[in-house]
């Protein structure tokens, strides 16, 4: 039911409005489209920057990002090093996974150490014991020392309100700071990575992925992750409404009872602030179902540092955090 001038203007009246039935076979699934976009971004950054690096923590998002990089340059090697900011409070199995991955792909690993900064008196331990916010200084130091001009991060816009405003290529000033009110407009798929000496760019190739996309992709591509992403038995105690693992840097207070539970981690960060969730998701397929049915965001469920205030992430990001 077109109008007189042959437009597709709907009238919403008697008949159903015209949505011209265009027979278009769907070639790509949403995962294919996201994968293609991420690979395009990774290749753009490698082509336009002198010295990129990829932030690799062994967490699922950075593992997916590295997997995408291997696909982008196949059959060649991934043409940049990986950078890990080690809080000194990492889960040992994650560090082991990190080292095996780097070895398997023949990559160079650069480590920025929070512990070394504390030992030198350049960083102070926080009263609450978490070292997550302390990562910013060693991160910026590693970027400066190694003259990285682009750093790939696994940040996703669905993670947090401040991240939702982040660009795919995001400029950082000489102090590593993010200025959310003065960001470059990002048009079409034309990324503007120009920067001056001292500035660097953070690149977020999986900006448009959701937690569920990440898990579906891990399942589809059969990507290996550290074991603690899957259900396992662990000694835990309750704190701030989360299950905290018992470990060298994560000790229960006298009133906190230690029990053994079947848990898994939805995010893998600093052991001192990352909580586990009770879960029977033993396989990647189980996790996909669990994430699809979840009623809590991954950060809300598992990160003490993001519960500090509504703007906790925004404040950390402005200072140069991931």
């Amino acid at each position: 039911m077109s109008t007189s001038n042959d437009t597709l203007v709907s009238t919403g009246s008697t008949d159903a409005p015209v949505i011209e039935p265009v027979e278009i076979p769907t070639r790509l699934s949403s995962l294919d489209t996201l994968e293609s976009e991420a690979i395009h971004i990774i290749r753009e950054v490698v082509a336009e920057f002198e010295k990129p690096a990829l932030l690799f923590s062994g967490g699922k998002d950075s593992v997916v990002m590295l997997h995408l990089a291997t696909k982008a340059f196949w059959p060649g090697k991934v043409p940049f090093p990986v950078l890990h900011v080690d809080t000194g409070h990492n889960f040992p199995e994650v560090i082991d996974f990190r080292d095996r991955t780097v070895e398997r792909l023949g990559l160079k690993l650069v480590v920025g150490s929070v512990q070394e900064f504390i030992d030198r008196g350049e960083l102070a331990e926080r009263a609450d014991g978490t070292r997550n916010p302390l990562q910013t200084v060693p991160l910026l130091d590693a970027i400066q020392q190694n003259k990285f001009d682009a750093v790939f991060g696994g940040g996703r816009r669905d993670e947090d309100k401040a991240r939702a405003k982040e660009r795919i290529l995001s400029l950082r000033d000489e102090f590593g700071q993010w200025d959310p009110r003065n960001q470059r407009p990002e048009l079409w798929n034309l990324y503007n990575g120009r920067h001056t000496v001292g500035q660097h760019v953070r690149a977020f190739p999986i900006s448009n992925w959701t937690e569920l996309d990440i898990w579906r992709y891990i399942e589809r591509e059969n990507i290996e992750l550290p074991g603690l992403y899957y259900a396992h038995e662990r000694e835990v105690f309750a704190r701030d409404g989360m299950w905290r693992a018992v470990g060298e840097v994560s000790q229960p207070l006298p009133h906190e009872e230690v029990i053994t539970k079947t848990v898994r981690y939805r995010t893998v960060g600093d052991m001192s602030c990352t909580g586990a969730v009770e879960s029977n998701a033993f396989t990647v397929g189980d996790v996909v179902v669990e994430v699809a049915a979840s009623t809590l965001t991954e950060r809300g469920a598992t990160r003490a540092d993001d519960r500090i205030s509504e703007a906790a992430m925004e404040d950390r990001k402005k200072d140069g955090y991931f």
Partner: protein
Amino acid sequence: MSTDTLAADLETALPTTLFRFATAGSVDDGKSTLVGRLLHDSKAILADQLDAVARTSADRGFGGDKGGIDLALLTDGLRAEREQGITIDVAYRYFATDRRSFILADCPGHVQYTKNTVTGASTADAVVVLIDARKGVLEQTRRHLSVLQLLRVAHVIVAVNKIDLVDFSESVFRDIEADVQQVGRELGLGSDGISDLLVIPVSALDGDNVVDRSERTPWYTGPALLEVLETLPAADELESHLESFRFPVQLVIRPQGALAPDAVAAGLDVEAYRDYRAYAGQITEGSVKVGDKVSVLTPGQDPRTTTVVGIDFAGSSLEEAAAPQSVAIRLAEEFDVARGDTIAAAGTVREASADLYAALCWLSPKPLREGQKVLVKHGTRTVQALVRNVSGKLDLASFKLEPASTLELNDIGHAQLRLAAPLPLENYLHHRRTGAFLVIDPLDGNTLAAGLVKDHPGDHEDERYSI
């Protein structure tokens, strides 16, 4: 839904497709509320997010004695936005239905609306423009539709919001609908078979016709907003069917022995890949098959024609690939091909040109001056350029071109640039990717403008373009 039924659903579900859309509106027309409603009713808002919003709503006394949740708070991400109750920057939101995954670019309406609308619309398959049913079509509505026409957004949906506040009046809706159609006709929206225009009565606050069809608008028999978004073809799908294959080369993959250790461990034939050479990029439009004749376009050289002998993707050999796939293409002849070159279907590209005629959406507080030196980023190539003249500025309300010699923030105008090297420019009207470019400030690297290539004067002028 129980975990078991969900597991069964996930088992049987077809792969979902991706659809990108943006929202645009004027101040106080309830855009954030509409976005919040879409997210809330499609169950994309999780309990902890809703709790945070409910707390803030209560703290601020939202809804008076009735209470309620200020859905607008779901989209205001930055501290300043929440404190001032305004949206400053484009925010991206994600939700999914059984059929589609959605990426929503929520574009603020009041400050720098052209900048934000241009940004959001440049990647959007569809744009939802809001109108307040009590106010009807405003000058800003005309401006929004004008920008969307200029950017060739495939689908434009006008949501006539706050229909509850006009007592679900059909006559109010029909009058607004007629006005929208009139503006659409003046703009030529929908006249070229590329874009279409739909008008839907909604109440974002109460949810009428947002996710489900409303019983309170019995005179409206069309689909709810989300139904429309679930069924419209994505721009990538439309563009993958164009005949003109285009592939800007991002980089050359030439390992020269530095093969990926994991690929070698998995049995890659090291000898066979010693001289491997492929051109990596993302197909911007059309499709390509092994055996296709293609032209390699290198600025300053005549097009060189050869044959595609391989389409590789991470260890798989493809027979065919289409937009927007990222692949690596191998050619029969060992040409010198580099980043910035374009591989295109043979015989479909006109000569590269150093004269660029364009519409510019000016996005910077620094005004454009004639005689200014800028950088132009087109595809995978960036070249220097000189602004020769500004030939006019668009009055977005009247759609007329007015004389101007400068462009300021949020202006859209026409200009002529001289490029330091010729580029394979194509009319944006027909090529949404290869007809687009950025204007960049060589001093600080900031993006100054979004550029849309126009036909050269003297070429057959397409009058649909001069809106």
